[in-house]
């Protein structure tokens, strides 16, 4: 029986490691996504909140240097939503210079949760829906898996494409913010007080990136038409937001909280919203919630990741099984 | 039927179609060109899906862009599939007929008729997802002829067809022409067009390089300089013989092989047996380089660029 020469077998030169297959897929995915003008514009927009929060670092340092304005600042903060955590820190008994870690953590957590959370949804909605659905429709699967490439390597390459852009949107700006905070501080001693924040940024990034990328690609693998995958992605977030918004508004109406207490207080309904579930775990990462408060949310994210990857592995194998 | 005056189509800085001037009487024509030559762009201009960046274009005396009346007179079968796989061929063709303003019943009758013409009547109620490649091509042709247009435009209609399918498609198109209707058939394969019509338009690099009959194209191919490899028992003797006849442009000799480059291969083929009869040179094998259309187009481009006369 003649064994057919598949071309690459006679190669006797050195071969790259298997993981490079994933890197190739990721590189191509990144390059293809980069061709989208709208994604490039969104990436530019994603850095604007860093400017806003950079101003927050600046004003915090000014707040430390000028005690006479503290009451006025607190008065203003009372009018801004989602700041009850910040106000409770500022009203705490600690020496203000000791609050630096908490304030910086709050700024970084807010950065992750509010502007970058929304931009993440839009960016992944631009990138992810066609990543696998187009491969299914064009039968590129047959080309991929006629090479020495495993399902895991294929999926890792696809997920890495999404991770790359999420890192550009969230991780990198947050790290730049941290470094900016150091430059705006009176001395390098602040590094000693805040050395753990870069690690928390990386963990918060992982919390943001892993379940969302898995879910997005899972949706992409379920259909051959990227517009359905895109719709499903946005619908999950929108329906979750709405659910949380309506139910927490009901509770708020009963309690009549102040403006700054809106949304942050109610966590019971957060598990119905992926956005708020992510936010709850990020609060724990940055030290504003205990693990007991966040364990359900964390478990939910782990479950979403596991289910998404399971479905992904099965869907990726489906053309081969047929 | 078709008039183009200095038509150019630009995609930003990329030229799709470059200064084409053309006037075609009603009839059947083949648009022949390699991949990326501008055939699809030209067809998109003719079918009114694109507007020329420069120049004017008229189809059946009318400007095609946004011309509803013209769309009733032309039928277009594009190269891409674009079929709704969950619907049957009959439903799809009927739907497209309804867009001509026909009632449901009339559209159904005409759809059935056209599907019968293309040999799909037996399968017309099956979902398109279950069709083979050839059946899909026939469905595409059915939608193009269903509303009985005067002028049929086809982009690579033989793509993906097996030999039987090609033969059937050829017969269909010949019948179409025999009925006195007009046809413009785009392909990159000469013999596909040759089997249907004898009039060619040769396009490459967005330019209309030449037009003529099949014989004229064949003559052009025959006159293209090419390499011929001759395996023989006395390569140096053969090389000397060919040099004496002054018919070759260059010769390369290896152990048992002579590779000649000549601008008159036709003449060489005709005269070689006579020359060899007077010698003891034996030729075991003779191969010529693929006299492909690409060679033809390369040659035509060189002529247009002034490199050859």
């Amino acid at each position, binding site marked *: 029986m003649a064994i057919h020469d598949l071309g690459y077998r006679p190669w006797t030169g050195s071969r790259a490691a298997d993981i490079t297959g994933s890197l190739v897929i990721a590189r191509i995915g990144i390059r*293809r*996504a980069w*061709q*989208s*003008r*709208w994604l490039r514009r969104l990436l530019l927009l994603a850095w604007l909140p860093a400017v806003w929060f950079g101003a927050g670092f600046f004003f915090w340092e000014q707040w430390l240097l000028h005690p006479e304005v503290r009451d006025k600042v607190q008065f203003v903060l009372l009018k801004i939503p989602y700041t009850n955590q910040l106000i409770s820190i500022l009203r705490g008994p600690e020496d203000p210079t000791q609050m630096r870690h908490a304030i910086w953590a709050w700024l970084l957590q807010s950065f992750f949760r509010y502007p970058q959370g*929304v931009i993440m949804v*839009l960016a992944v*909605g*631009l990138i992810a829906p066609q990543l696998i659905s187009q491969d299914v429709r064009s039968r590129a699967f047959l080309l991929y898996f006629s090479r020495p490439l495993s399902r895991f390597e294929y999926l890792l390459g696809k997920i890495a494409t999404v991770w790359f852009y999420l890192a550009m949107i969230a991780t990198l700006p947050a790290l730049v913010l941290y470094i900016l905070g150091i430059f705006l501080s009176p001395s390098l001693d602040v590094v000693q007080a805040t050395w753990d924040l870069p690690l928390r940024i990386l963990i918060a990034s992982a919390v943001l990136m892993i379940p969302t990328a898995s879910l997005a690609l899972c949706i992409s693998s379920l*259909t051959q*038409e*990227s*517009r*359905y995958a*895109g*719709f499903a992605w*946005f*619908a999950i977030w*929108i*329906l979750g937001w*709405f*659910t949380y*918004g*309506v*139910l927490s*508004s*009901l*509770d708020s*109406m*009963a309690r009549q909280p102040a403006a700054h207490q809106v949304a942050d207080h109610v966590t019971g309904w957060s598990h119905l919203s992926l956005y708020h579930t992510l936010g709850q775990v990020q609060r724990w990462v940055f030290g504003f919630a205990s693990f007991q408060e966040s364990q359900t949310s964390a478990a939910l994210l782990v479950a979403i990741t596991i289910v998404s990857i399971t479905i992904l592995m099965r869907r990726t194998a489906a053309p081969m099984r047929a | 039927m078709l008039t183009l005056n200095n038509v150019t189509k630009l995609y930003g800085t990329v030229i799709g179609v470059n200064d084409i001037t053309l006037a075609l009487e009603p009839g059947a024509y083949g648009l022949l060109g390699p991949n990326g030559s501008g055939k699809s762009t030209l067809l*998109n201009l003719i*079918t*009114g*899906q*694109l*507007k020329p960046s420069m120049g004017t274009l008229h189809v059946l005396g009318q400007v095609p862009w*946004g011309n*509803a*009346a013209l*769309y*009733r007179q*032309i039928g*277009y079968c*594009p190269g*891409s*599939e*674009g*079929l*709704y796989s*969950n*619907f049957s061929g009959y439903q799809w063709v009927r*739907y*497209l007929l*309804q*867009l*001509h*303003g026909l*009632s449901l019943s009339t559209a159904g009758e005409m759809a059935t008729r056209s599907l019968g013409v293309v040999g799909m009547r037996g399968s017309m109620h099956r979902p398109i997802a279950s069709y083979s490649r050839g059946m899909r091509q026939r469905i595409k042709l059915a*939608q193009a002829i269903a509303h009985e247009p005067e002028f049929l435009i086809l982009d690579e209609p033989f793509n993906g067809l097996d030999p039987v399918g090609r033969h059937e498609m050829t017969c269909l198109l010949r019948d179409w022409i025999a009925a006195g209707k007009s046809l413009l058939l785009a392909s990159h394969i000469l013999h596909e067009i040759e089997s249907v019509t004898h009039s060619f338009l040769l396009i490459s690099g967005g330019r209309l390089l030449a037009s003529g009959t099949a014989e004229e194209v064949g003559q052009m191919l025959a006159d293209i300089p090419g390499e011929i490899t001759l395996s023989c028992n006395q390569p140096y003797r053969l090389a000397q013989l060919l040099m004496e006849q002054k018919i070759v442009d260059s010769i390369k000799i290896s152990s048992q092989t002579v590779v000649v480059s000549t601008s008159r291969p036709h003449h060489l083929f005709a005269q070689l047996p006579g020359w060899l009869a007077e010698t003891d040179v034996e030729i075991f094998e003779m191969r010529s380089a693929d006299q492909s259309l690409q060679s033809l187009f390369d040659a035509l481009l060189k002529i247009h660029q002034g490199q050859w006369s």
Partner: protein
Amino acid sequence: MNPGNFGAVFFFEWQRALSPARMAWWLVLILFPAFIVALIRVSSAQPPREPWYIFLFALVPMLVSMLGSLLWASPAVSSELELHSWTYLAVRPHGKTALLLGKYLATVTWVLSAALLGLSISVLIARPADPWYLWSTIAKLACISCPAYAALYLAIGCLFPQRAMAIAVAYTLVFELVVGFVPALINKLTVQYRLLALLVDWGTLPLGGRSGSGMLAMIGDAPAWHHVAILAGYTAAMLLLAVVVVHLREFTSESMTNG
């Protein structure tokens, strides 16, 4: 143009809508408001009258209309380009116009049916003090919001076919959900502003209390017919914009690159 042209598209699109995936989304849009209302009933005592109007307004004329129109209307052009079926429609007499109007009608009927069914189930679960009045108010708003959002997303889909859905979501977030609640001239340009004003008027919601003056600043005091007329004009303008864009622009399947 023969009305039968876009009638053909309308019926054809409804046939396409009977696929399992689309029917599943239709059911989701019907049942989601009912799910939320059920959660409200289970988790708290019967809210007073006004919150029901606000919740059902957020769920039906806003959420269901927006999501349904997003699924159907925004990819009207891009779906055909992606499938390479645009060509067949573009070379039909008035094919592009028929496609847009037919898809628009199909969108409105599909979304409105889901909205009204979902509203009916929700009102049955909510058991408010004035069920018929609540249902009729929200139903009237849905009958206005569905065509308006469908036209808006159709126009967005024609202007930006390559990233229609993402741009439609971004537009909705920024304009309808943020700018729409800013008490200034700019919010009058949004559908949200008009719908909110109609809700307050038709639902006879009080403008007093904590948010009284703020609410009045946000929605103004124009009569209801004024808002309905403007929304009708807005809908027609968006449809006209969509048709004009499709007629002026050159669409080919090859143009569907990552743009």
